[in-house]
């Protein structure tokens, strides 16, 4: 991790003016796509992510199918125009491959896959605009899309990154804090039974710091759950199907 001398915390405030435990603004919309079985769009700070879910559908290739359960597949992709810097490459990278895997493993804990043997469930995540914390925003959006698709699940998951910058523990790292901070710990947690379903970390932390950070993540996940829940319920309450403003 780069250790540039940038003041990430000044007088208890972060560079974007937030307090250590404050999240960026989050907006979630469910069911925004016509063709997908379930979908969600999330704007989280400078992140804009779209997620579509298909399934359960026929498992292709067939030899991957299981007669005991549905196979969960996840594809996380970053668009070439997602960052302010140069035009990226399209197609999978080492990073997107790893993230696709850990996101899939998050949902494999929740999806009641025995319900649909010999099938697959696809989770497609496309990051259209990125600004730190895309994997946690992706997990949050994918959870909404899966519920919207009517995929049977044991619980709903919410996700946020906690970290350390300027020797302070902080919630929801932005891009600068992610790049120049001391530590980054993305966490996803199920709402009802409080299990940690996604956990990664870089940097150096003590045992006590980690205990505190998980607590901070848990509290934030509760707030995010409320937003996910509100987005899903809105579909069944709103009047005319409004068009989504991006």
């Amino acid at each position, binding site marked *: 991790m780069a250790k540039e001398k940038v003041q990430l915390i000044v007088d208890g405030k972060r560079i974007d003016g937030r307090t250590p435990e404050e999240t960026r603004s989050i907006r979630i919309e469910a069911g925004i796509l016509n063709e997908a079985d379930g979908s969600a769009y999330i704007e989280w700070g400078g992140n804009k992510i779209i997620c579509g879910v298909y399934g359960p559908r026929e498992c292709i290739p067939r030899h991957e199918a299981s007669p005991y359960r549905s196979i969960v597949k996840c594809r996380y992709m970053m668009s070439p125009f997602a960052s302010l810097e140069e035009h990226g490459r399209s197609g999978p990278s080492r990073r997107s491959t790893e993230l696709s895997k850990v996101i899939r493993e998050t949902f494999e804990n929740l999806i009641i896959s025995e319900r*649909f*043997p010999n099938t697959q469930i696809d989770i497609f995540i496309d990051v259209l605009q990125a600004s730190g914390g895309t994997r946690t925003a992706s997990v949050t959006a994918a959870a909404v899309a899966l519920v919207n698709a*009517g995929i*049977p699940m044991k619980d*709903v998951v919410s996700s946020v990154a906690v970290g350390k910058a300027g020797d302070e523990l902080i919630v929801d790292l932005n891009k600068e804090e992610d790049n120049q901070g001391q530590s980054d710990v993305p966490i996803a947690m*199920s709402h009802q039974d409080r299990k940690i379903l996604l956990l990664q970390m870089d940097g150096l932390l003590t045992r006590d710091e980690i205990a505190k950070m998980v607590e901070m993540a848990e509290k934030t996940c509760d707030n995010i759950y409320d937003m996910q829940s509100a987005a899903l319920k809105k579909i069944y309450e709103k009047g005319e199907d409004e068009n989504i403003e991006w």
Partner: protein
Amino acid sequence: MEKRVVLPGEKIADGRAKIPHTFFDGEATYAEVIGTLDEEGRYIALESAYRPSVGDTIIGIVTNIRRAGYLVDLNLPQEGLIVGRDVKVKLQRGDIVMCRVKMVTEVGDTELGEVRRLPRGKVVDFPPSKTPRLIGRKSSMLNLLREHAEGDVMVGNNGYVWISEKSNIPLVLKAISLVKQKAHRSGLTDEMAEMLKKETQG
């Protein structure tokens, strides 16, 4: 009656309750899809993938002919099978059939019986969890639709809807998308009646 929307993982009942789209963890019963829960503890799924069960009426399209019989697309991950000797008429690829689910195996293979071939028409897919609204109480919605479209419409539990070629197809399609959008709201029947009246008066 007061209804609230519940999400997967929310408790529906203490102990084991035999309600579709729920799971039991040894102590209580929980929702596994988004649904509504009323004051009397009735839970109804709002979104769910269809799983055939014996006795369901479903609509399918013959896609292939095998020695054992006919393969039928049911808008499901796996095709259904009509055993050849169970049908008197010869079916062809593209034929639309209405049948009853005779048997479902543990791995999702479906065998169909009581086969009836439907005349030429358009087949559209519709969310299976919302078909009860499209049919209405004692088929009220469906009959309203048939009357205004001046032709036949059939709804399968699997979500396939067949619209007779002789009916006003664009009108039925419009009505179907109205139900799709507002299946969960009250006053749907009135709104539908109004729309159909307006459209057919030109």
